[in-house]
């Protein structure tokens, strides 16, 4: 992982992590080492923890997981007890990762707070987000 920047590891079910990382690279052209994808498929809890530990290295790092619960979230949280400069963000999404790759030089705590906010802010739904001031009874 790049010197002086916060590393990123995405841990998720199935091929989700690889898909997210591929999407980030396709959109931003970011360094190949900015994010490391890990799937929990066919891995025991110990084997998954080993993979995540190895990917985290010794630099400040954020582990992004899909679900807050389950094997991915559990493996990540487990490692926070042994890796001091590590943070975990659950509920990873693409907007969050896109923001991550362009702000990796921020201090770890500041970056985590920012990404959680960015991730949350990127979630919305329709129709509530469609022109909320327009009367739906009026044809447009």
């Amino acid at each position, binding site marked *: 992982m790049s010197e002086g920047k916060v590393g990123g590891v995405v841990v998720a079910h199935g091929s989700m992590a690889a898909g997210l990382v591929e999407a980030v690279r396709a959109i931003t052209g970011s360094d190949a080492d900015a994010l490391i994808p890990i799937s929990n498929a066919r891995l025991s*809890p110990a*084997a998954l923890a080993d993979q995540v530990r190895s990917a985290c290295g010794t630099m400040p790092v954020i582990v992004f997981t899909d679900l807050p*619960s*389950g094997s991915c*979230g*559990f493996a990540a949280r487990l490692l926070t007890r042994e890796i001091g400069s590590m943070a975990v963000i659950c509920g990873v999404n693409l907007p969050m990762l896109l923001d991550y790759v362009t702000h990796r030089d921020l201090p770890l705590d500041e970056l985590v707070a920012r990404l959680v906010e960015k991730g949350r802010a990127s979630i919305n739904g329709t129709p509530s987000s469609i022109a909320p001031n327009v009367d739906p009874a009026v044809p447009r």
Partner: protein
Amino acid sequence: MSIQLYRVDERLIHGQVIVGWGNELHPERIIVVDDDLAGSAWEQELYALGLPDEMTAVFCSVEEAIRRLGEWETDPVKSLLLTREVETMTRLAASGRLQGKEINIGGLHYAPGRRSILPYVYLSEAERHALKDLVESGAVPSAQDLPGGRRISVERLLKGGPEVS
């Protein structure tokens, strides 16, 4: 029957259990039987983070579980009982309280010394022996990862690799 599922799954409280089996069986309580976890408050806390609001978790030793199985079987709270090792379930079964009970082998993944049986079941020699002991105790184990998945008999599991298709 208040314990709706006895399951061996080394990931314990995770997506397949909470979402997959949870949506099918609607349990209100997860009983985790594991001697190490029973004595580790911080690990219990980590696992409990994965619980939806409508579920509670109980972590207990094999000894305590044997004492309380009768109570859990008859009280109205719908429960799933999980162990992360076959051997733990075999110790429970040795009490004679799992006679005729179906035991779901749900997730034992790759680790050195284990042989691939199914995509979600890898067994070491010790685990194969524990599985045989489970059968001899009167329990009825079979493999099935999710409610919609195919149930694989213990005979086929014990036949071993290459992977059962």
